[in-house]
C-alpha cells in the first residue's frame, strides 16, 4: 500500500525530529512499525501521568510557533481557548496544505501518519477536546486513505475513541476531506467547510475559533507539523525543546525547496542555524549551470519576493543590527520578517534568470484569482483584475502605466479584506512591482510578437 517514494539521501546537517524515521527504508506506515519505534508511548505516558494543564504548560514553555504560515505561538493559541463556555471543545488538524511550494505535511501524512495521530491525541487530551478532525485537501486522496486506515488501527488499539487507555478521556478522530479550494486552509474557512457550507472565512472579530469556532464552539486549529511537534515537546519537555533552534524560533522546521535549484526537496533543519543561502547552495545544490539567481520567494508564493542582490539592514528585536544579502537571511521565523517578508509555510521558491519575472507574477496572480473565495469585494475583484493585467502584460499587451496600476490595486486590497487571502494575493503583486519595477516598465517596450513564441500559454 505504501507507494510513497523515500528520499534516499539525507544531508548530514539536517536535524530530523519530525521526519526522523519517515525516509528509513525499513519504516512503514503500519501501527506495528510505529510502535516498534516507540510510537504512542509518549501519549500513553501523558494520559497516565500528566494533567492537561501540565501539557499546555510544556507547549507554552517550548515557545513553538505554528508551522502553518502565520507563525503564531501555539501555546498562546491554546491559552486563548474558552474552556468555561460549557460547550464542547474541538480540535482540528489543518492538513489543507495548499500554498504553492509547500509539500511538507504531505510527507508526514504519507510516511508517518501515526506520528500525527499521536500528536493530535495528546493535544486533544491537553485541550480536553470532545472530537478531533483532520481536514485534508481533496488533492491528497492517498493521504486521506492512509490516515483513515491509520486511525482505524489506532482505534482498534484504543488509542482513539472512548475511554482511551482506561484514562476516562474519550475523543474520536475523523478525516474530513476538502473539495479543492485553497481558502479551506484559512482556519475559519476550514471550519465553515466542515460545517458543510461554502468556505467563506468568518469575520474576526467576533468569530475567533478559540471562542466561536466549529459549530460556534471553542476550537483549536493547528497545522500538521505543529501537532507532530507536540509529541516531541511532551516527550522531551518544553524547556528542552526550546533549546533546539534559537530563542523565539525554537525547534526544527521542514523547509520545502523548489524552483530552479539542483536538489529541490524537503529539509528538516534546526531553526536559526542556517541561512537562505545555505538552503539554496548547501542543501539545494545551488543553481543550474550558467544560471544566476533572479529572485527568491522565501515562504510560499504569497510571501513578498526578494530580488537577487538586494540587501536588508536594520535592527533585530533584541537590538542588534544586521546587514544581510538575501543569502544571509537566517532560516527561521524572524529572519525573513526582518527582511520584509515571511517564512510562511516554509516553502522557498528559487527563481533564476531563465524566466520573465512578469510571467512569474502572472502565474502567481492566476492562482490567487482562481482561489479567491469571492466573499469580500477587494480580494474578489482585485485578485482577478491583477490577474487580467499581468496576463495581458505577459501576452504582449503591457503598458508602462501598468506597474503603478498594479501597485495601487495591491494597496487597495491588503489589510481591507475579511481574511489573509487579501494579503496573499496583494503581497506578490506589490513586492514584484516594487522590486522589479524596471522589468515591469520595460515589458511595455517588448515586441508583442515575442509572447507568441512562448511554448506555454498564460491564461
Amino acid at each position, binding site marked *: 500500500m505504501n507507494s510513497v517514494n523515500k528520499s534516499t539521501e539525507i544531508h548530514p546537517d539536517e536535524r530530523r525530529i519530525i521526519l526522523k524515521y519517515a525516509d528509513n527504508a525499513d519504516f512503514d506506515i503500519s501501527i506495528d512499525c510505529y510502535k516498534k519505534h516507540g510510537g504512542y508511548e509518549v501519549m500513553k505516558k501523558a494520559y497516565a501521568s500528566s494533567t492537561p494543564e501540565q501539557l499546555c504548560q510544556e507547549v507554552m514553555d517550548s515557545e513553538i510557533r505554528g508551522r502553518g504560515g502565520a507563525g503564531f505561538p501555539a501555546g498562546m493559541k491554546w491559552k486563548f481557548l474558552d474552556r468555561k463556555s460549557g460547550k464542547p471543545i474541538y480540535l482540528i488538524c489543518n492538513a489543507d496544505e495548499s500554498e504553492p511550494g509547500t509539500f511538507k505535511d504531505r510527507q508526514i501524512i504519507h510516511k508517518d501518519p501515526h506520528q500525527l495521530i499521536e500528536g493530535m491525541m495528546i493535544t486533544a487530551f491537553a485541550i480536553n477536546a470532545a472530537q478531533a478532525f483532520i481536514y485534508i485537501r481533496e488533492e491528497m486522496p492517498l493521504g486521506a486513505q492512509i490516515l483513515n486506515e491509520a486511525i482505524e488501527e489506532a482505534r482498534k488499539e484504543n488509542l482513539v475513541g472512548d475511554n482511551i487507555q482506561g484514562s476516562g478521556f474519550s475523543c474520536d478522530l475523523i478525516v474530513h476531506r476538502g473539495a479543492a479550494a485553497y481558502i479551506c486552509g484559512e482556519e475559519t474557512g476550514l471550519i465553515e467547510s466542515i460545517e458543510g457550507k461554502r468556505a467563506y472565512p468568518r*469575520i474576526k472579530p*467576533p468569530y475567533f475559533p478559540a471562542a466561536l469556532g466549529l459549530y460556534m464552539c471553542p476550537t483549536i486549529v493547528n497545522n500538521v507539523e505543529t501537532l507532530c511537534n507536540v509529541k516531541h515537546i511532551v516527550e522531551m519537555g518544553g524547556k528542552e525543546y526550546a533549546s533546539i533552534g534559537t530563542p523565539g524560533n525554537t525547534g526544527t522546521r521542514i523547509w520545502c525547496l523548489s524552483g530552479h535549484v539542483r536538489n529541490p526537496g524537503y529539509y528538516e533543519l534546526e531553526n536559526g542555524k542556517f541561512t537562505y543561502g545555505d538552503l539554496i547552495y548547501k542543501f539545494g545544490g545551488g543553481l543550474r549551470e550558467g544560471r544566476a539567481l533572479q529572485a527568491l520567494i522565501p515562504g510560499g508564493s504569497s510571501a513578498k519576493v526578494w530580488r537577487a542582490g538586494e540587501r536588508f539592514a536594520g535592527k533585530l528585536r533584541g537590538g542588534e543590527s544586521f546587514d544581510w544579502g538575501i543569502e544571509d537571511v537566517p532560516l527561521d521565523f524572524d529572519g525573513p520578517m526582518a527582511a520584509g517578508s515571511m517564512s510562511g509555510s516554509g516553502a522557498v521558491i528559487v527563481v533564476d534568470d531563465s524566466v520573465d519575472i512578469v510571467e512569474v507574477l502572472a502565474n502567481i496572480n492566476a492562482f490567487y*484569482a482562481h482561489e479567491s473565495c*469571492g*466573499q*469580500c469585494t*477587494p480580494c*474578489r475583484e482585485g485578485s482577478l483584475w491583477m490577474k487580467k493585467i499581468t496576463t495581458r502584460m505577459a501576452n504582449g499587451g503591457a503598458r508602462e502605466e501598468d506597474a503603478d496600476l498594479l501597485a495601487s490595486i495591491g494597496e*487597495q486590497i491588503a489589510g*481591507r479584506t475579511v481574511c489573509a487571502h487579501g494579503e496573499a494575493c496583494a503581497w506578490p503583486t506589490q513586492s514584484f512591482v516594487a522590486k522589479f519595477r524596471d522589468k515591469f516598465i520595460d515589458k511595455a517596450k517588448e515586441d508583442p510578437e515575442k509572447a507568441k513564441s512562448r511554448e506555454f500559454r498564460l491564461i
Partner: protein
Amino acid sequence: MSEENQPVTVFIDGEQAEVPAGSNLVDALESVGKEIPHYCYHPKLSVSGNCRMCLVEMGTPGRDRATGEPILDDDGNPKIMWVPKPVIGCATSVSPGMHIRTESEQVKSCREGVMEFLLVNHPLDCPICDQAGECRLQEFATDYGRGYSRFIEQKNVKPKRTRLGPRVTLDDERCILCSRCIRFCEEIADDPVLGFIDRGSYSTLTTFPGSELANNYSLNTVDICPVGALTSTDFRFKMRVWFLKETLSIDTESSVGCNTIVSSREGRIYRITPRRNDLVNDCWMPDSGRALYKEVDSDDRLIQYAIEGRPAKADEAISVAAGKLLEEGGVAIVASGRLSVEEQYLIQLVRGQISGIVPTYLVARHAEGDGKLLSADRNPNVRGALLTGLVDSIPESELTELNSLISEGSIKTVLAVGEDITEAGIPVDLLKKINLVYMGTHHTECSQYAAVELPLLTVFEKSGTFVNQQFRVQKFSQAIPGPGPVLQGFANLTGLLEKLDPSFSMEPTPAAVWEDMAGKVPEFAGMDFDGVPSTGIVLKDERFAGLSFVETAGMNFEPKNALAEA
C-alpha cells in the same frame, strides 16, 4: 433607564457624540446623522461584513496592561490606541471613549478602492436598469468614488435574466454579491433557497437545484438588493423610479397592517413596497400585498352610480338609496372590515338615522396566520368597527343570522358596504326578496341585484386610518385620484347622511370625521387625523378585553387573549 440603555460617548472625527450603547458603528453614526456607506449590512439581517464599504478607522483609550490604568497623553487626555488596519463599521460595536475616523485619507482610500472594485465587472447599464435612481452603486460612486475608470480589461460575463421564481428576475452581472438576499431567505423568510455558485469574481447567485424563490416574501429581496440585480418581474422595465410619486399607505391584506409606500405616476400605480416600521413590519411585507394595486384598474371595477341597473347621477342614486333605507320593514347593514375607521364611523351614523333595531354585521375573513406578516384575520380593520361601535363582537364569515332574518321576512332592506353578501351566505333567491343598497369598489355577484349601486374608492384613492391587530391606528394617504364619476373622499356616506338628516353637515374628509369622532369614541379622545404619526399610535384596548381575537403570534406581535394562544 437601565444601565445598558445609557448612551455611550464616542468621538466621531474628533466631535463628541452620544450614541446608543451596544450599537454598531453604522447604526451609531446614523443616529447622529452621519453616514457610513455600506452595501451588505442591513439592520434587520445578520452581519456578513463582506462588502468592505463601511471600513473606518477606530481606536480606543489605551490601558496599561499591568495596572489596568488609563494611559494618558502629554495633555492628560486618554491616549487613543488606533487599530492599525481599518475596521468594518457593521461588525464593530461602540464602546465608551471610542474614536472613529470617517473622513481620513485612509478611509477615503478604502471607499475609493471598494467602489472601483465593485464597478470593474459591473455592466454600467444604468440607462436600462430599473434600480437607476435608487441605486447604492450610483449614489456611493458619486459620493465616494474616484469618478474615472482605470480598468481596460474584458469584463466578466454572467447571465442577464435568470428567473429565480415567479416574481423575481435576476441580472447576475449587476450583482455585487452582498448576500443580503441569501440572508433574508434564511433568516426572515425561513426559505433558504438562494446561494452562490462558482468562486471569486465569477461567483453567481442562484437557487438551489430543484427549488425556486417562490415564497410570499420573495420580493423583499428585490427591495433590499442595493443594486439592480434582483428585479421585480412585475415592475421590470415599466417606469423610471425618479418619476414615481411616493405615498405612505397600509397593506390591507390582514390585520398586521404592514406599512407601505405606493409609487405612482400620473394617476397610475406602478408598485407597492414596504415602509420600515420597527414596531409593525420591520422592513418587510408579503408579495401578495404588492399586487393589490391591480384592483384599481381591474375589469370588474365599479365606477358608475346606478339605480336598478340603470346609470344614474351620484346625487340621484344617493337620494334613492336614502329612500330605500327609510322604507318600512326592517333594515340591516353589512359593512366591511376592509373599510377605513372613518367609513365605519359614518356607517354607524347612518344606522343612527334608521328607525328600529338595525342588525349590523361585518364579514370575517379568517385564514391561518403565517407567523410573519399575514395574520389570521385577513381584514385590515375589524378593530376600527369595534372602536366606532359599528359592531360589538368578532365577525363571522357566514351571515347566518341575516339569512334567517331575510327568510322570515323581518328584513326588507340591506345596506351592503364593501362586501359581496352572496359570498357570505345570502343566496341570490334571498337577494330577490330585499332592497339591496350596494356600495363597493367592484362589481360582485350581489351587485347585479342591487336596487342602488354606489361606487366606492379603493384604499389607494382615499385617505384614512385602519386599526391593526396591535390596536395601532395607522394612517394611509391618497396616492391617485379615483375614477372620474366616483365622489371623492367619503362623500357617498356623508351625502347619504345629508339625505337622511337634512341638518347633517360634514366635509367628506378624514380630518372632519376625526373631529366628530374624537368626541364620541373614548379611545380617540383628544386625537386628530393630522396628529396620527406615520408609525401609528397604539390605542387603549381595555373595552375589548373580553373578545377572542383570532390572530396568533407573528412578527412584532403576541396575542393577548387566551383563545388565540390555545
